[in-house]
C-alpha cells in the first residue's frame, strides 16, 4: 500500500502506481493538467514510466479564470 498527498489531501492506494495509472484512478485522463511530484515537474510524456512512491507529495493543476 502507498500513501500519497494529492493537492494537500491524504490518499491511500492498494498498490504502487505510475503517474498515468493515478491520473486514470482520479478520472483525469485526457484533461489538460500539469503535475508536480515533490516539488519537481513530471512531464506529461513521462507519466507512463514515472512510478510513485510512498509519501510522495503531488500537486495537480489546471488553468482557471484569473487576472
Amino acid at each position: 500500500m502507498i500513501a500519497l498527498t494529492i493537492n494537500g489531501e491524504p490518499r491511500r492506494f492498494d498498490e504502487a502506481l505510475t503517474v498515468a495509472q493515478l491520473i486514470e484512478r482520479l478520472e483525469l485522463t485526457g484533461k489538460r493538467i500539469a503535475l508536480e511530484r515533490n516539488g519537481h515537474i513530471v512531464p506529461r510524456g513521462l507519466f507512463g514510466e514515472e512510478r510513485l512512491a510512498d509519501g510522495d507529495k503531488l500537486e495537480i493543476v489546471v488553468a482557471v479564470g484569473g487576472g
Partner: protein
Amino acid sequence: MEPMIIAGKAYASRLLVGTGKYKDFDETRRAIEASGTQIVTVAIRRTNIGQNANEPNLLDAVPPSKYTLLPNTAGCYSADDAVRTLRLARELLDGHKLVKLEVLGDPHTLYPNVIETIAAAKTLVKEGFDVMVYTSDDPIIAKQLEEVGCCAVMPLASLIGSGMGILNPWNLQIIIDNAKVPVIVDAGVGTASDAAIAMELGCDGVLMNTAIAAAKDPILMASAMDKAVQAGREAFLAGRMPKKLYAAAPSSPTSGMISPVKGKAA
C-alpha cells in the same frame, strides 16, 4: 496603428484582459471577444480531485489557438511559489514561455512584494521564461526588473481590484521615460477614461480584469475599454496641445466680424 511588441511578437490590440470574476465561462468568452484583446491572463490552481469530473474548462472558452495565454502567479506570496507555479504553467501549456509574474505582499492590499518579485524574475529569466512583471509604481524597481531581463514591466495604477484609477501619473511617466521594454499599466483601472489616461501617458498597453468583470454590463465595458485604449494611444501619438490657463487665442478668426447695427440691442 503600429502594433505592440512583446518578447518579439506583434499584437494589434494593446489591451490585455484577465479571465477572473465572471459569472460563467460564456460571459468570460463574450467579454474577451468584445474587448478585442489578443492576450488573456489565466491562473493556475489545484484541480478538483474526484469531484466534478466533467467540470467545464476555461481553455474551451479562451482557446490557446485563438489567444495568447498569459499564465499568472496571482495569489503567490513567495518567489519560490511563483516560480513553481509558472513551471507548472509551462508544462500545462506545452512549453509556453510568456508569463505574468506577480508576487504579493499581503492579502489585504494585494500590494506587490518587490523583493520576492525580483528574486523570482531572476530565476525565471535564467530558466528561459519571457517574464511580464507586475510591480509597484517605483521607477527604480521597474528599472531593476528590466535589467534583470523582464520583457515587459507592469506597474500598478492603484491597488488590484480597487478601480481607483491612476493615482500617480508622475511615477508612471518616469517609469515610461526610463524604460526600454514595454510598460503596461496593470491593476487599478476602473473605467474607460482611466485606460485612456494610461495610454495618453505613453504606456504601451493596459491590463485589467475587475474593471470589465465587475461592470454592470461586462460585455459593453469590454468594448468601451477597447475603444479607450485605442483612443488613448492615438492621442499619445498625436501629441496633445499644451495646457494653459488662459487661451488668448480663440479657435475662430478674429477678423471679418460683421458690424453691429446702430441703435439695436441684441
